[in-house]
């Protein structure tokens, strides 16, 4: 029972990270029908940006609330800027091209970001400062919860709930949903599609940036190529939930995080990825467009 609860906590933590990253995939997909393969590399990039911001403004042992907040804000800003740049340079010219051309462009963009990170920060693993978050931990009924986990769980929940209301309650959110349903009709209604796409990339990249910093704070070690692994898991989460569907990405992320934690806790770490993809394929066999994905009938 202890293992179970402990793995629940761990799973929800990882799941929140997946969900944050999955939102970036799913929002871009919803509007552009594009798998943004560079998104995972943006997440990794964010961890390194955060490290440098921290290193140049503060030093280990002097961490304060101000330090953490400024690291989050500056990293999110930088990564969102790169995300917008990415869309401008690599995706916008391909909006009318065959769909797979944009996929190749995204793969290329991923290579560019990943290798830029390697050239700037070097190929070796970097370690996140130990006191980025206080090392406090709580022991409740046999399970251990760290301060970092509490931060991850609470901040991701706030961001996800916030995003949900933003999409469903605000004017911009309505515009985003309209563009996702029918770009041409949205254009006719006076919605500036380019602006909506930019907003999507800002939000998606910023959420990814937050996830990247959390990954640094939680796992400590960060490498230039880690984006692929987190990106893939998050992408799988988005697919499980039904890609293009925002609550689906959240659900998929949490589900995958919990599932992973249970597999590694009870069965094996060696086969973790195999279990992940078996779960995905089983879900897709029974629900071809994911758990919350809608059945799309083509108009004839």
């Amino acid at each position, binding site marked *: 029972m202890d293992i179970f609860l402990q793995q629940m906590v761990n799973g929800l933590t990882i799941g929140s990270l997946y969900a944050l990253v999955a939102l970036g995939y799913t929002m871009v*997909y919803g509007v552009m029908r594009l*798998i943004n393969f560079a998104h995972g590399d943006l997440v990794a990039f964010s961890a390194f940006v955060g490290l440098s911001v921290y290193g140049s403004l503060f030093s280990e042992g002097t961490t304060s609330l101000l330090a953490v907040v400024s690291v989050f804000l500056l990293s999110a800003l930088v990564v969102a800027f790169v995300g917008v740049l990415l869309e401008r*340079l*690599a995706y916008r*010219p*391909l909006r009318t*091209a*065959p*769909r*797979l*051309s*944009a*996929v*190749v*462009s995204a*793969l*290329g*963009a*991923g*290579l*560019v*970001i*990943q*290798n*830029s990170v*390697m*050239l700037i920060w070097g190929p070796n693993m970097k370690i996140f400062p130990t006191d980025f978050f206080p090392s406090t931990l709580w022991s409740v009924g046999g399970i251990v919860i760290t301060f970092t986990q509490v931060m991850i769980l609470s901040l991701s929940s706030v961001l996800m709930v916030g995003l949900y209301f933003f999409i469903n309650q605000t004017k911009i959110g309505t515009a985003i949903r309209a563009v996702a349903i029918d770009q041409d009709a949205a254009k006719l209604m006076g919605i500036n599609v380019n602006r909506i796409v930019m907003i999507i990339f800002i939000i998606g990249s910023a959420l990814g940036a937050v996830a990247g910093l959390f990954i640094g704070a939680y796992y400590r070690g960060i490498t230039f190529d880690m984006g692929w692994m987190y990106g*893939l898991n998050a*992408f*799988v989460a988005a*697919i499980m939930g039904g*890609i293009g569907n925002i609550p689906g990405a959240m659900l998929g992320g949490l589900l995958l995080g919990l599932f992973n934690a249970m597999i590694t806790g009870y069965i094996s770490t*060696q*086969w973790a*990825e*195999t279990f*992940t*993809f*078996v779960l*995905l*394929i089983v879900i*897709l*066999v029974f629900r*071809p*467009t*994911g758990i919350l994905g809608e059945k*799309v009938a*083509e108009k*004839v």
Partner: protein
Amino acid sequence: MMNKTGLIALLLLGFAGLYPLFVDSAWLAVGTTFLVFACVAFSQDIILGRAGVFHMGHAMFFGLGAYTTAILNVQFGWAILATWIPSVVIPMACAFALVAPIIHLRGDYLLVATIGFNIIFIQILENDVFGLTGGPNGLFGIDVVHVFGYDFSSQIHMYYMAFILLGITLFIMRSLDRSKFGRAMFYIHKDDIAAQSMGISLRYYKLYAFILGAGIAGAAGSMFSVQYSAVSPEAFNVTQSIMFFTIVLVGGSASLPGVLIGTFVMFVLPEVFREFETARYLVFGVAMILTMILRPRGIWPVKFGNIPSFLKKGAK
């Protein structure tokens, strides 16, 4: 009277045939691997470029062929020649068994499922299931081809074997393009509803593409394992799959010259720029983006209208 494309093809054939006479052993090996990769790229193109199925796990079929030959030879002592048929049939059987349940999935869902198969395949190899695969290090000491007491063991032999394999692959591609099977793949790719209304089963032709593609990739894998006399998991991981996927789209899907150019650009050029170790993939990424922006249908896009000449007479 020979047309321009025919002339270029003939020149290329001559060049490829004489290539081993001009290069050192390192470049000879690069040439052999180019031929093998071209076969794999063509087989990927059957699935992706012709049938239009988003498939990003092709390195698995390539690896299945390679490991079939390696395991049968190293663990069970089969002669390489005897492993050829299983190295084609096993990937085909796996393609059928794995893809049939998910062939109805839409584009991107199928794409991530095929990535999944590839990742599971790599984990099976790395975890050394039944002690057959040699784990992360793979298997080595794979034999060469013996026929009537003659050993085909030199790099030049390898090159010409790969050359013949590519020849067979091109022959199959040509047969496919000129049969109802190849055409059906194009029809379902271009408009699946119209294709179905013409009596074409999506499921049958998508599976046909997968099984044929897996068979060719398996043969290429067998050749690959003999060339290097070793196999290891990282040669068949998702990164490799992404490379084959990209080769097809950068070169030009469903275009024979396009896929050859794609293989050259994505595999040989990086070898040429090996000394710029750190920066080359950065440049590479930029090149991928630029190629797609400037040539969204690939460097040498496919040209349709391949019809018998008696029908062209009245055409303008």
